[in-house]
């Protein structure tokens, strides 16, 4: 058995410490050690996007990041999107647009879409499609997901201080 490593990282705004084996992926650490099971595994090789999280503001597929690499990093997962009881505009839009069926891809899409809107508040349809192309959804055909991202973008633009809430 490999010796475990001590990792400190900020996860959804809280400093967390945990022990992990060097071979454990960040995805495993989030799910199995920290019990943040909102982040899903669909392929474990970087090709489905269900494990997408933000690492220091950058989108990563957490199955391709080793746990120890998260040392000192700031991680945002789907569990970190809502502000207390208030849903993020993307979460609300996904519900209103019926942008999920089974919902297993949803956490990855929400985190990826948040990263897009953080950078580009008014993306075109084509830009949204390009940005989300690393996230596979087998249920929806993407139509309602794209519309939900458009709705959230419009809502954020309309809300005073919308950008600050992101």
């Amino acid at each position, binding site marked *: 058995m490999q010796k475990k490593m001590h990792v400190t990282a900020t996860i959804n705004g809280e400093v967390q410490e945990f022990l992990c084996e060097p071979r454990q992926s960040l995805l495993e650490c989030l799910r*199995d050690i920290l019990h943040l*099971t909102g982040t899903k595994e669909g392929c474990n*090789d970087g090709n489905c996007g269900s494990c997408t999280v933000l690492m220091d503001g950058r989108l990563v597929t957490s199955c391709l990041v080793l746990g120890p690499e998260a040392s000192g990093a700031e991680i945002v997962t789907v569990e970190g999107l809502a502000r207390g009881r208030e849903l993020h505009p993307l979460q609300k839009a996904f519900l209103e*647009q019926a942008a999920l069926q089974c919902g297993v891809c949803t956490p990855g899409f929400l985190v990826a879409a948040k990263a897009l809107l953080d950078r580009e508040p008014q993306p075109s349809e084509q830009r949204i499609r390009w940005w989300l192309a690393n996230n596979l959804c*087998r249920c929806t055909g993407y139509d309602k997901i794209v519309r939900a991202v458009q709705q959230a973008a419009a809502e954020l633009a309309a809300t005073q201080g919308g950008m600050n809430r992101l």
Partner: protein
Amino acid sequence: MSTQSYQVIGTRPIRHDGVDKVTGRALYGADIQMAGLLHGAILRSPHAHARIRSINTSKAEALAGVKAVVTAADFPPTGDRIVDLGEGETPLSYIRGNILASGKVLYRGHAVAAVAATSPHIAAEAASLIEVEYEPLPCVLTAPEAMRPGAPLLHEDLKTKEFGQQTDRVSNIAEHFRHSLGDLEKGFAEADIVLEREFHTATVHQGYIEPHNATALWNNDGRLLIWCSTQGAFVVRDTTACILDLPVSQVKVTPMEIGGGFGGKIPVYLEPVAALLSKKTGRPVKIVMSRKEVFEGTGPTPGSFIRIKIGAKRDGRFTAAQADLAYEAGAYPGAMVGAGAMTVFAAYDIPNVTIDGYDVVVNKPSTAAYRAPGATNAAFATETVVDEIAEHLGLDPLDLRLKNAAKEGTRRADGLKYRRIGCVEVLEAMKAHPHYRAPLEGANRGRGVAIGYWFNAGLPSSCTISVNADGSVTLVEGSTDIGGTRTSVAMQAAEVLGIPAGSVHPVVVDTDSVGFTAVTGGSRTTFATGWAAYEAAQDVLRQMKERAAKLWGLEPSAVRFEGGHFRASGHEISFAELAARLAETGGPVVGRATVNPRGVGGSFAGCIVDVEVDPETGKTSILRFTSIQDAGRAIHPSYVEGQMQGGSVQGIGWALNEEYFMGPDGEMRNSSLLDYRMPTALDLPMIDTQIVEVPNPGHPFGVRGVGEANIVPPPAAIANAIYRAVGVRMRRLPMSPPNLMQELWKKS
């Protein structure tokens, strides 16, 4: 009832499980954590066909952290018998043999042994230490190959069933059946034009994003507890009980949230294995498949070889049609070719028909249902031949279809006579759709249409509804919710009770907590479980009328329920007000119902597609796509549209990219989501939808299932569009760049 206006049905409430699913709180099968949990891993065959000479597990057992190893030898010796566990009659030995191989492995990826250890990494390491000695055998990978006399045999004892009779012929053909109607020869003799074409379709996977998983705890009281991702908790219960030789009541299955299924999460793969490992260790054991295991070890949908012959008069009237359907079942019989035969000419009224179906075993994973299983392959063939006939006769392809469209009273060759169906309405909606008449300009662009059918399923469902003092109700059901059915079922109860959808709290429960409920499959949940909810709600109303009568000192028959209120002359009380007074009128009210409905309504779906082909690369792009489907009655239109969009896009992937790319050794060469190319957001335009509503007379609200028919027409419609774009008729799926270039080169 279908013409009346509804309060809840047809609206678009937020789904009840929505918040949990956008916040990451919803618990899927792989999310289970529990004290003492062990992790399982499965060793799979590296050969497509081989005899197992020996299995040595000692090195694996010696690895630190390993707690148990099991093989097929650990199954109780139940012998063989025929069982029906929800997918038709099957020998138990086939189901068991697919879960853990004994004697022979029949496909690459066939499970051979399993390990439980303290971490998934140790379990995987240990699995690789199991030594299996194989004697490799020659393999067969396609139906035509496997049907050839002298082909290597998968099952030395498999005797062909022919026309319903057991023969003595040992072969890879498990079954050959025939449906006949009228006089085929006479029909073809009457035709002015007869076209005969051959088609090949590749094996494709359902591609759900969540891999299979199961957790089992063989408890100290002898009961086996299972948590898993399944389309049918009762199928898992019954199959596991059967294989482990337990009474069904000793197994309790809790269906967790499920990350997609499309038919592929009906069969049982992991649960009995996790159970055996738990039995040996006394601890809970969780097994989660990798993506590669999902591709190599679970059921894809059959590849197929199809021959279609259709004869027509000059005016377009079809006089005769013939189909030969040879479907690859994979390692064990059951290729859904029966469904292919039921759907191949389902859209048409043809007087003279013969359909031959062949269920053929090959050295590929044992196939499972995939959204209208068998129908997409068949429609690809039929609908491209129909398009060719329209071209030869100079007819509009939709007019030709309308001329021959099946309607109420049409008899199919497999014997069924249609009740009210919406084939004509769907075709007319396609014709009237602005997309059909919109100009399409530019080189290498073309438009295609096609129609498809799925018959849908009934089967049993159970439901209870208890009334809460605050005027809401709790609805308990056994149908796992894959795409919003908690809500579409709850809405039907809400409609009956005159309360908002949000006042119904639907819960999907374990097999101990609700009556038997068949799988979420066959597009049956909104239809059948929705019907159970309707009946349970009626039961609630009946009991509540008694309570109102008691309050008012009247006979229950004097009480009416209308507009959300109980009324009798001079009296009125709302549902919520009466709900608050149950304690004083006799105690709780619980409505219950079980149904096994017969009035299943099949659904037709059509699509219109515009494509552009790049003649340099053979890549086809979808420019515009419209899906039109008969929902009977759309309970929650957003989720009906979602089914249409999702099915259409799966059809597009099947049409253009997806295939098991097999080496001659039976190895799948593209077993990752990078190489097995499913459509991404960037590959697609918006998917327009139009819901047609021809109410199903067999359901109280007119519901037909909508989950499946939508996947059926896209490959044919795209093939027809490609023909209009670049002048080649594609008769092989997928119509991937290499396959399309072949045809373009042949033409030039």
